[in-house]
């Protein structure tokens, strides 16, 4: 099942960038870090898209041919204030990698670590966020 990201998730990853993990032939993680990304509105906000350079794309393409799953986490301050992990299957279109998000996790340290947010319906997911975090955007960005 493909899952829709909330505005808070979208704001934090698009403005703070992401750490993207794919898996190589030997089963080792390859991690790239991007400064930004986008969440595709045409996909009902369920696809994360980001650009890589040619060398990174070659690595990603080889990895995806064997292991289609990737994991994505917010970068910079988002690692602390936006504790999410997105997992999904990825494809390459032009110079962009597109991840159809299939699993969304809360990674806040403590008893909620690892909680599957995508088991909630969308309104419940929004409620989960608003009851915990007041910041819809990273600091310095208007809500």
């Amino acid at each position, binding site marked *: 099942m493909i899952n829709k990201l909330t505005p808070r998730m979208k704001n934090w990853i698009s403005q703070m960038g992401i750490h993207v993990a794919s898996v190589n032939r030997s089963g080792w993680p390859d991690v790239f870090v991007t400064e930004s990304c986008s969440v595709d509105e045409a996909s009902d906000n369920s696809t994360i898209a980001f650009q890589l350079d040619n060398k990174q794309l070659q690595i990603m393409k080889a990895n995806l041919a064997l292991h289609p799953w990737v994991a994505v986490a917010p*970068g910079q301050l988002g690692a*602390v204030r936006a504790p999410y992990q997105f997992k999904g299957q990825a494809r390459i279109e032009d110079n962009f990698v597109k991840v159809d998000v299939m699993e969304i996790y809360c990674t806040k340290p403590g008893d909620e670590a690892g909680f599957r947010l995508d088991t909630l319906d969308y309104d419940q997911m929004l409620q989960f966020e608003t009851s915990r975090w007041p910041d819809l955007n990273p600091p310095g960005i208007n809500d």
Partner: protein
Amino acid sequence: MQLTQEMKQALKVIGKGGSVVHLTTVSNEGKPNIVAERFVTAYKDAYILIADMFAQKTKVNLNENPVGSISVAHPVKGRSWVFRGPCTVISHAASESYRWHQVNAGEVLDEWGDWAAKEPPDEVPPDIAPPRLAQRGLIVLKIDEIFDFKGQVV
């Protein structure tokens, strides 16, 4: 492969508990898992230690496939490194004499086994701090390779 002084300092840059990093592990089926971690430090020039607080999926993956990556998450400011290598968990249940590469369980657990008491994370705001810190052991990564954020070998 050895950490430079700059890298060691970067891993200790925020507050007392160290920098914030992302730890990536991989399941036996090739599905990655990436989570932010704090309570991190360099150890013996070629290792990184992270407190094992609630790393459920990480531990399952490491039992299946004992490798990992650690990428500097915050603050970055030019410290754009990804460290990769063999990775394991040394739990509080381990024998004091247990050794993994050059890491002795008794030695590291004595020093870092109760990280929150050693370095209380006072600077962490209440809305992102866990209500209670319960450390199960240490996650240890041996640094075999270092990359920049674009995947180029450093």
